[in-house]
Every structure is written in C-alpha cells, then in structure tokens.
C-alpha cells in the first residue's frame, strides 16, 4: 500500500507538511495525491476512533449473520447492497462459510435492534435466515486497543 495511505490510516489528522517531511516529498504533492484519492473514492471518509464504552451511550450493537439467496442477476450484490442501505447497518460484509452476509447493526435499545431484525431484515425478499449476537464490550477497534497501554518503561537515556 502507498506509504501516504499508511500514514493517514495511523493518523488522518497529520498535517500535509509533516507527511511531506516523512515521505521526502513536497507538501503540494501530498495535498494533490490526497485529493486524488478522495476524488477516486479510495479515501471514503475520515472518522474518529472512539472508546464508546467510556461514553454513557444508549446504544447496543448486534452482529448479525444473514443467509440469503443470491439473485439471478447481480448475485449477492443486489441483496447485500439493499441491506447496506439501512442506516442501522454500520458495516456489512460478504462472507465465505456457513452464512453469507455479516452485519454490524446499531440501535438505541435491544428491543429496537430486535424489531429491525424481525420486521425489516428478515422480511426482505431473498433473506433466508438470521442469527443475532449482541456485543458486550470492545477491546480493540481498527487496530487500536481500547485499554491504555502501560507507560514507556525505558530508561530516559541509554547507550
């Protein structure tokens, strides 16, 4: 992967001047390439990675395994894209194995997530069955640990 993208994946707020120094490029070139990635749809957005367990949120997250029937034209894409359009669905992936689509669904209460599954998701044409698991605690998201790392224990000066 492009070094530039790696740096942005670690810290999307890094200034273009600093990225330019790290890569040994002119800052204008960094700005141009980022704009190109944004235009081309490689960079699809920038988000903060939150430790939501620290916020007293009225929110539950369910991980839902969905079995679907692929359609004659469009295969899995038609049904998977239709499911993805619901705002409750935060992430959706086509999977290999015993089910087809994996969803991360958020809602304010367990009851509302359950209602989403039973009333809207299960009733879609092409959805054969669902299996819902509720998430209890987050340890790591997007490669970032949610608990604090131990402090730097190195000696302050060493040979």
């Amino acid at each position, binding site marked *: 992967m492009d070094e530039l993208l790696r740096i942005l994946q670690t810290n999307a707020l890094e200034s273009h001047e600093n990225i330019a120094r790290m890569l*040994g490029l002119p800052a204008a070139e960094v700005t141009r390439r980022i704009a190109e990635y944004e235009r081309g749809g490689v960079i699809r957005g920038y988000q903060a990675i939150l430790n939501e367990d620290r916020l007293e949120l009225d929110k539950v997250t369910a991980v839902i395994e969905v079995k679907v029937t692929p359609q004659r034209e469009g295969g899995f894409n038609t049904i998977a894209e239709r499911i993805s359009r619901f705002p409750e669905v935060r992430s959706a992936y086509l999977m290999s194995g015993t089910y087809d689509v994996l969803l991360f669904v958020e809602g304010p209460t367990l009851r509302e997530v359950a209602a989403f599954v039973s009333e809207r998701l299960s009733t879609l044409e092409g959805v054969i069955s669902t299996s819902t698991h509720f998430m209890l605690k987050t340890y790591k998201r997007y490669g970032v640990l949610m608990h604090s790392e131990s402090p730097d224990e190195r000696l302050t000066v060493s040979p």
Partner: protein
Amino acid sequence: MNGSPSLRNRISATVRDIPRSGIRDFFDIVTTMKDVISLGIGEPDFDTPWHVRESTVFALERGATHYTSNLGYLELRRALARYVGKTFGADYNPEDEVLVTVGVSEALDLALRALLNPGDEVLYHEPCYVSYRATILFAYGVPVEVETRAADGFRLTRAMLEARTTPRTKVLMLNFPNNPTGAVMSRAELEDIAAFARERDLLVITDEIYGELTYDAPHTSIVSLPGMRERTIFLHGFSKAWAMTGFRLGYACGPAELIEAMMKIHQYTMLCASSLSQKAALEALARPESDIAEMVNEYRRRRNFIAAAFADMGLECHRPLGAFYAFPSVARFGLPAKEFALALLREEKVALVPGTAFGACGEGFVRCAYATRMENIKEAMVRLRRFIGRR
C-alpha cells in the same frame, strides 16, 4: 565506606582506570527532571512483537526453564544459521560455528578475550558505541581509535586504517550501520576495508546489531565479501530489529576454532544464555520479515522527518542512512556538546546525548535517537528550533 581509599586501592588497576561512561553522567542528570522528551534512548520504542511475547509465556508454561547446551539450543542455532545465510550472505554450520550469547555485549567481550594477548592492538572507529574501548581494555588489549568524520559521512576509509596500523595490530572492529552516527558503508567501500584486512592479516569483529535497519539501500555485511568469512567474527542479536533489548539475546558466528575459543570462556562465565530468551528468539525468527518491515517503514518516516526538520532549522547533519540515530553538528553554537545538551535539557526539556559520550571526536555533535513516537519527535523538533532560535 563510600570512597574509602583502602578499598579503592584494592580494585584492579584496569578497572579503576577506566572512566565512568559519559552517558551515565548525563542519565543521572536527566532522571532528576520531569516531563522530559527524550531523544536519548538507544532502544526501540516498539514493543516486542506480540507473537514473540506470547510464545515466551508458552515456553515458560511448558517448562523451558533449564540450562541449555552451552552453545544454545541447537534448533535456535539452526534457525540462526539459516537467517544469517539468507540475510547477510555467509553460511555457518550450526553445530560448531554459532554461539548464542547474552546480548552482543557478551559476544563482543568473548571475542576480544578469545583473541587478544596483552598488548595486542585493536583498531576501532569512533564515534562508537560506549562500551568498545572499555571492553578492549578489560581484555588487556590496546584500543587504537580511528576517527571518522562528518565530511566523510562517518565512514571508514583504508587510508584512515593504514595511518593507525602497527605490527601489533591484530583485530579490526566494525559497527555499521553505526551507533551513534547512523552511518552505513556501501559494498564498494567495504571491499577496500576487506582488502586491507586480508593484506595485513587482521581478524575482524563486526557488530551488525543494526543490520536490518537501513533506509535507502540494503545493508552489506563485510563477512559476505571474498576471503572474509575465515577471518571474521560476525555479531548480531535481537535487541534492535525485533525490539527485544530486555531479553538480552545475541549471537556470534565464525570459524569453528574461534567459536570454540569463545565458548570456552562463555561456558565458565555464563554457562548459557537464558532458555526463555532463546525460545523467544526462535519464535522471532519464525517470521522475521513482516515484523521488521513494518518497523523499518516507521523508522524511515521518522528519519525523513528529522532530516527535513534539521534542514529547516539550519542544523547541519550528514544524512543518517541506518540504525535509528541522527548525529547533527552543534559546533556553530560555540558550546561544548555537553553544555549544549545540558542547556537544551534545562531550557526546553529535550534530552539528547552529547557526542563526547561516544569518543572524544564526538565533540561538537549530539546524538538524536528517533526510536520514539512521532508525536514526541514532532514536539522535540519544535522545542529544538525554539532553543536554536535563541542562540
């Protein structure tokens, strides 16, 4: 009792006459201060890769807590021989040409003690790692320093060695990529040095602990050059490339006769390297490329960042090519390196190591380690720039 002359007089003259490490003096001052950003740390900020730590715990559970063979686990020596062959281009027999040690420090001590008779001269280049001179003296050798210069990118040349060689010269010590300068020697440059070693029939001890950490071109080991394997002891370890400093695990590769001689000392003084650390090393070698590649990328970004920041603030610095150190000149501020470092510490709470800790010719320079998080480096550069602006 402290400072009692009668006890001091009973300490061996060799030990008594060796001065305290300059880095320790500086460390003592830094530890009295709070909230210091340290670019003075000569070890990686990365954690040891998790698979290595996890497998060390597993080894402990399984009871790998006993003495190992003096040379080290044979399985580990086999893995080391494969790794050195592939990465550094020299083939060793794991049965009798590889010795696992407690860090490169022990391996270096063993090599010097195994080779030197009292009065034998050892050529080593300065600025260099803080222990070299003392380790030669502890082995009753005569340290003969060869000064490398910023103008040459702190590389060694044949002419420099020729000027310092005498009939008593027995050993040439090398350390590239270099601590503290970040210098690297190209293959062509090493060929000159190798030819000189062959002509003068010198033995070579090469400390290649930073061998994986080069940023512009792959590292060449002198041991891979023609006619060098039979006169070279190759030293390496896990501290830097795998961020395993506390495991204290190094190794030496060399002709069987020399390894046997080193093993004689090792078996009586150390017996064997830690069994758990050896298991950890075995796991580290199981998949080295991915761990190292990621760290090298990150160090390269930091190197680029620091080099650009120095250029912006007008701080003269030869381009650091390897290890994780930059070695800028502070001579134009008219202060000795130590005073510069102390003033920077007092005024801006940034710790660098004065170049003099690495030999007298380090005067006028400071070592800046970039083995620390990018946020720290960024802040340190802001402070350094402010400090320089006031001079």
